[in-house]
């Protein structure tokens, strides 16, 4: 046969078409697409795909382990501000001096292999953690638990060594907690740390079906007896028969997959979200209109000072830097005006607006800074949301007229843009400005700020850094961003001056207890520079205050469920101290760019009907699934 290039070309073309058309199975093992919910996995490719033992270390628990396989005693839902009792029948009961906690378990729940979930599982879990250093929750269990016992098969009593009104929070799931182990599996295990727990036995509504040995995906299948799990008992049948968690290395691949209806629930970058909404007829964001993003995340972003390093150990310097920020411009640079601002060390989410933001408005309006020589200044500006609205109109975004909605979208207010006041505060503290408008430190040297940040441009740390540097440069400070892969290590070790680490630890997201936010600032946790702090968010600011210490200690002796008013009052007092001292600058609430595809599934928990928290990676996904509707 005579050699012809044309023949070769046709052969290659034929092979390509065969490959592309014949191998059409998209899902593992021929799983039907219309029965499957496909969600994006947040924390990356699973490093140990064959290991499900999340009690022993980091196991990418958002691959479905925490969402579908396991149910905790309690879960936080920040969308509703409630605590959901899962394996527990109700909230915990403490005795008067918080040395004893009683937990009533829900009856009628079973492990996926048919064994009932009972008090014995809880007791075993706690005991094995006390005995086994290396298990993640060994520390608190060994430190606090004197004895754990049952009074009947569904009632567990914890005797505590040290009074602790927050002991239950170790079992309260908000993206992690001590989950109950199946005693009948783990009691036969020789080494709890190396045991792979594969295939895993769970008490949640799904069991493992298959997984990718390279860690790109994990497939779960609804249990036949889903009604014998807390999810089934509380909310009914989870609608998808299968749930597939998939990791995409590139944002582009994820976007294209969602446009092809190959992923139902994904978290993108803000730019990626826009691309999906722009090109897809079936995709939607948390809001159907601009600004689309989830703005009820219980996390606050902002700027962190290292309070052990001069001049940031001076609260007037910290306040000067705060007043040198025009928050409207800042928001335009950082997040295209799409997030709610917050001047409290809390995100303005439903759980906290009623309890803290609204009650504190009057105090904030009257709050004054002492500028010296009898001069004072009221820094609060409740008009900021309206100024953001005006800026958004200039960008032709559709803006609602309803003041309540404006508040929901853009927050309650922030600090005034007052460079003149900032200047007074700095001059009062020995700073000087040269003829070029550049600021100098009290020792005469040029004031330079190298703002340490996470290197990913999509991260809120990076976005905050860009905006802050822009504002401070305008004010006359030689500021620059310093993005580095070593961000986490440097921040925890205190090897920075100013950074964009989380300015405060995320609160629980439900109830009125803010202890989780305040605890990292207790003086007992302070460490010298060079030694890591244990609680990075908030705590890496290396700041403490005796009055706040007292409040934290009072909170430890206050029942967050029985003494709600007292808990709120203590929370407000602590927030006031944080404002006066400004150890970190909170700027805006974290926003997640979630896109849902309505090609196969509808009734997502969007802003118009926020029946559940909206993320696929939170443990509450299981409580969302019964509400989905097949299209």
């Amino acid at each position, binding site marked *: 046969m005579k050699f012809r290039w044309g023949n070769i070309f046709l052969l290659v073309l034929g092979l390509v078409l065969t490959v592309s058309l014949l191998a059409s199975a998209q899902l593992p093992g021929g799983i039907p697409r219309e029965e499957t919910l496909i969600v994006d996995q947040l924390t990356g490719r699973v*490093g140990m795909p064959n290991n499900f033992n999340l009690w022993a270390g980091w196991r990418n628990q958002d691959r479905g382990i925490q969402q579908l396989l396991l149910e905790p005693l309690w879960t936080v839902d920040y969308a509703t501000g409630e605590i959901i009792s899962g394996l527990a029948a109700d909230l915990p009961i403490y005795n008067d001096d918080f040395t004893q906690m009683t937990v009533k378990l829900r009856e009628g729940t079973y492990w996926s292999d048919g064994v009932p979930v009972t008090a014995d599982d809880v007791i075993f879990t706690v005991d094995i953690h006390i005995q086994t250093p290396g298990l993640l929750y060994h520390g608190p269990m060994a430190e606090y638990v004197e004895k754990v016992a049952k009074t009947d098969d569904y009632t567990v009593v914890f005797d505590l060594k040290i009074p602790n009104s927050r002991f239950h929070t170790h079992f309260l799931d908000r993206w992690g907690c001590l989950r109950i182990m199946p005693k009948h599996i783990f009691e036969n295990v020789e080494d709890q740390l190396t045991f792979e727990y594969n295939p895993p036995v769970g008490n949640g509504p799904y069991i493992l079906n298959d997984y990718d040995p390279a860690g790109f995906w994990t497939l779960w299948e609804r249990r036949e007896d889903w009604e014998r799990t807390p999810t089934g008992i509380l909310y009914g049948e989870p609608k998808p028969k299968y749930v597939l968690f998939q990791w995409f290395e590139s944002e582009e691949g994820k976007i294209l997959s969602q446009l092809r209806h190959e992923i139902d629930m994904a978290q993108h970058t803000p730019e990626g979200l826009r691309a999906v909404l722009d090109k897809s007829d079936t995709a939607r964001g948390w809001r159907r209109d601009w600004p689309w993003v989830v703005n009820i995340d219980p996390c606050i972003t902002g700027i962190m000072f290292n309070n052990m390093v001069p001049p940031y150990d001076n609260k007037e310097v910290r306040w000067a830097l705060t007043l040198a920020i025009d928050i409207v411009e800042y928001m335009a640079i950082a997040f295209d005006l799409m997030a709610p601002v917050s001047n409290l060390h809390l995100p303005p989410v439903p759980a906290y607006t009623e309890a803290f933001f609204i009650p504190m408005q009057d105090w904030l309006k009257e709050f004054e800074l002492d500028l010296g020589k009898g001069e004072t200044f009221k820094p609060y500006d409740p008009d900021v949301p309206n100024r953001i609205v005006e800026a958004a109109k200039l960008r032709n975004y559709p803006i609602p007229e309803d003041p309540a909605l404006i508040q929901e979208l853009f927050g309650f207010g922030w600090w005034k843009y007052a460079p003149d006041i900032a200047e007074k505060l700095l001059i009062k503290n020995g700073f000087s400005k040269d003829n070029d408008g550049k600021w100098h430190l009290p020792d005469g040297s040029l004031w330079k700020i190298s703002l340490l940040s996470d290197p990913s441009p999509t991260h809120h740390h990076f976005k905050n850094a860009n905006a802050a540097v822009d504002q401070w440069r305008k004010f006359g400070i030689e500021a620059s961003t310093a993005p580095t892969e070593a961000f986490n290590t440097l921040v925890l070790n205190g090897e920075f001056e100013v950074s964009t680490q989380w300015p405060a630890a995320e609160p629980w997201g439900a109830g009125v207890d803010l202890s989780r936010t305040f605890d990292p600032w207790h003086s007992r946790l302070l460490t010298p520079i060079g030694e890591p702090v244990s609680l990075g968010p908030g705590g890496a600011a290396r700041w403490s205050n005796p009055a706040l210490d007292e409040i934290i200690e009072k909170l430890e002796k206050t029942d967050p469920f029985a003494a709600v008013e007292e808990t709120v009052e203590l929370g407000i007092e602590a927030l006031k101290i944080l404002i006066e001292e400004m150890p970190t600058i909170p700027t805006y609430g974290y926003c997640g760019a979630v896109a849902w595809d309505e090609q196969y599934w509808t009734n997502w928990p969007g802003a118009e009907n926020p029946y559940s928290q909206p993320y696929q990676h939170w443990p509450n996904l299981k409580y969302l699934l019964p509400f989905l509707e097949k299209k």
Partner: protein
Amino acid sequence: MKFFRDYFIPRIIQYVLVIFCGITAVFFIPRLTGQDPVLEIISQIQAQGASLDASAVNSLMKTLKELYGLEGSLLEQYIITWKRVFTLDFGPSFFQFPTPVSDLLRTYLPWTIGLFVTSTLLSWIIGNMMGGIAGYFSHKKWSKILDAVIMVVRPFPHYIFGILVLILFAYVWQLFPAGGMMLGRKTILNWNFILTILRYSFLPALTLVLLGGAVWFQQMKLLVQNVKREDFVQYAHIGGVKEKYIIFGYVLQNAMLPQITQLALALGQVFSGVLIVEMVFSYPGVGLLLYRGVTRGDYNLVMGITVLSILTITTAVLILDLVYPLFDPRIRHK
């Protein structure tokens, strides 16, 4: 004997020295980045809002430091590293603890080798063949058009070209998948599995072959254009040697020598060469593994991959040096 003294032994000494310096550098460089693997893990857990209180975190820090073998002086760790190199046991990956680095390499390396070696060989063969012919007939119109097309393709960064390919073949014409979901599955030797692999590997391979092939094409074209002007080629023409023989026997064979060296070096890049393409197409390879290791301060993982990389490249260069006299009589006679 003279060959051994002047040629073989110096190259063996050079080989050992390069490995020693490379591994020493790989030991120290990650430790100079300021990243602490324990703190990176803690931050990862805290960043997701996980509920670990201070005592749990402190206990975890202590445990992880012990488990990772990060206690002891730098010198002690350096000595342990050499022990690991000699046994090719690089210990556990920190970030994927307690999975041994060797297990991770066993999982991911075959995928990278499959994609990278295939696409490198294909791009080398196609690029050199086309470049050689285009270089010999450089005065022809088709050669000039081909050269112009290659000039456009070649400067594309892998990332941009990969996305372009992805948009065209996975979105505009939905012929191929957008991600690497089915890849990485347990190997089952059946027709469907092979088709699946081909289907998911096609676009990353296409990206690598086109961009790699363009480089080989341009190099070969320039080499051939130079060689065909050499006296011995002119002499062959005058002597009436058939053109087909001149092309393959005189011109291409001489122009191929540096390309063979380049091929050996290119194959040595298997550990990091396709990182960007792996990212764009979510391909389960070792490049991504290395990237994650670097960004998370996973010293053992970085050490495992780079040591293999150093050994592969230096060994490839050594073998090439030793066998080069077989290809090139000028060196043999020197």
